[in-house]
């Protein structure tokens, strides 16, 4: 049975890649998504945001958090678009995962990445280096995304295996973030907590 996509790429500007979730479904920061058609890329969700489609429109004027807007003022649905910011983390050639080389394409459909595949992705040490390479000035929620990603991943293991895996991950993180002590500690504390 053909799997259903959960989002679609709608804007590409260098590494600023935006996708729109299907039916405004919330997709959490730190989720992995993949494309499977023209090229096989794995993405990490780095942020989610609302775009106002009215030129010059400013939904900030309502003075309440974006998540509450739809509840209190349902009409905003007509002109607010819920989007996610995604970042290419790896590429897949049916056998191996490796740092991405191909560019994503517009309107590519994005699919969920299952745990079995996540495990395979994490077997590659370059993934940690790629995570550390994401510019946190451009993507301020990077660390939060990494914490989410690792926590989700670890939560799938049973208790004993989880602490083993945690230690391995921490060592890999330590190497990858050897130039950024503050981020490392933020992530480690987020993940272990």
């Amino acid at each position, binding site marked *: 049975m053909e799997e259903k996509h959960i989002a679609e790429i709608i804007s590409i500007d260098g590494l600023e890649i935006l996708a729109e979730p299907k039916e405004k479904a919330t997709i959490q920061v730190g989720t992995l998504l993949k494309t499977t058609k023209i090229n096989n890329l794995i993405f990490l969700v780095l942020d989610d945001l609302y775009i106002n489609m009215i030129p010059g429109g400013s939904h900030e004027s309502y003075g309440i958090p974006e998540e509450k807007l739809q509840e209190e003022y349902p009409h905003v649905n007509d002109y607010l678009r819920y989007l996610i910011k995604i970042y290419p983390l790896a590429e897949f050639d049916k056998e191996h995962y490796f740092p991405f080389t191909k560019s994503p394409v517009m309107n590519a459909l994005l699919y969920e990445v299952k745990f079995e595949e996540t495990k395979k992705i994490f077997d590659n040490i370059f993934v940690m280096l790629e995570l550390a390479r994401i510019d946190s000035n451009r993507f301020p929620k990077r660390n939060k995304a990494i914490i989410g990603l690792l926590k989700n991943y670890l939560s799938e293991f049973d208790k004993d295996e989880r602490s083993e895996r*945690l230690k391995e991950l*921490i060592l890999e993180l*330590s190497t990858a973030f050897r130039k950024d*002590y503050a981020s490392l*500690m933020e992530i*480690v504390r987020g993940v272990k907590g």
Partner: protein
Amino acid sequence: MEKELSNYIGYITSGSFGEGLTFKLNTYVNPENIRIGDFVVVEGKNMDYLCVVDDIRLKVTTDEVFFDPPVDEDVDDGIEKLAVSSFVYNEISIFPYLSLPKDPNSYGTTVKTLPTHFSKVRSVKSTDFRRIIPEKNAFYIGTPLTSKEKLYIDLEKLSMRNSGLFGITGSGKSFFARIIFAGLIKNKISTLLIFDMHNEHGRSIRSESGKIDSLASLFSESVKIFDVSKSSKDANTYIEIAYEDVEPEDVVLVSDILQFSPKSEETLEIVSRRRKDWLKFLLDEYPNVKDKKEVSDELAVNLESLDALSRHLQKLKNLKFLKETSSRDSIKSIIENLKNGISVVVQFSGDYKDDRLTYYFVSNIITRRIFNEFSNLTEDTQKNRVVIAIEEAHKFLSKQYQANNVFGRIAREMRKFNVTLFIIDQRPSEIDPEVLSQIGTRLVMELKDENDINAVFQGASHTKRLVKILSTLEQKQALVFGYAVPLPLPINVRSYDEEFIDEMKEVKTTKSVKDDIY
């Protein structure tokens, strides 16, 4: 892969001839397993380098670590500590003392080059240590501080110059000395004259595991015991000393124990110049003289001073072995034994046990006779090398006495007559620096006093780094450096036990044929 790598503990990051080398310790090696004084080998391209650990430094790549340090292991099972493992590392300073050519059959040479960046550092193997000293001269004295390979000394070289064995009481000097003595006798390298102050080198010795054999039992053919006390059951010969063997300098040496008054020394000098039989006169005759004033006038000395001198000297009357005339010349007998290659242990038993007066007095008298005898020999006639071992050496070799004392003269001149000193002392700072700088091989055990520590390095190189090693030594450990070893060796002194004794008693049949030629 793990197994292959585990021999390597890091790689070279910097270095210079003056400061030595620095290597980064591999992350998986716990720095607590490395101590100052350990040996490591650096594998260079053309050469390996045998090095000793000088210092260990804990380093961080960023100060941020200090502002937000990881929590303790017991809080989070070590997760945060694991995380900072890329930000902390350990740097080890080592000093290369010996180059080991890549040919495993050749011996080490002095260091003239440095290894390249990233040369690998590994722990030492016993085969590395066998390349320090040529096998035929190598005598096993101990193991490295934290491992079990054998370390050797060149006894031939040791006996060619003066040696010093220093350490506080209880550090293990006497046991270490006995190991060296046994090696010298067993390998027929030199004949020993041991002034055995505490009766430890004769027939047997009390150790942690009960009574065990000492030198005269190990080598019954080539070691004889001479004792000043007739109560000794171990002695081969009892020592008698005739008045005529005694010189004023022997008395002056113990003047503090005899409680000389300020004028006594001067009076002694005058009396001994005027009267050949000065000792008999002062000990036996003068106390019975009726008209003491007349005698003192005759000698041109002050009456009270003469009175006092004679009175102070009466302590010597307690020495039963001191005779007006001696029926047999036991000192001559000691000299004959030494000339024939028989080692002599001079013991002080019975009433003389641990008696300093007797020890200094007798050692000085015997040694002077030997000095006079041997300095009349030409280099060809004196074949046996003789090593004279003394404890409490600072007494003889202090600034005050050494210039005129016979031990001082031997320390300075006797190499050409094949006589050298083996000095054992717990207060090296009281030995004249001039004598200290004449010491070729130094065996230094635990020392606490700063002056003593500085003294043992008198005239030595690498002082600064060796001081650090010395300060970490404990009982039964020693830092051996100087002429008899091509690099400083921090060691656990091997045990003087049944195993050692069996090894010494074992007859080497192949070697003895050759040795008999001598």
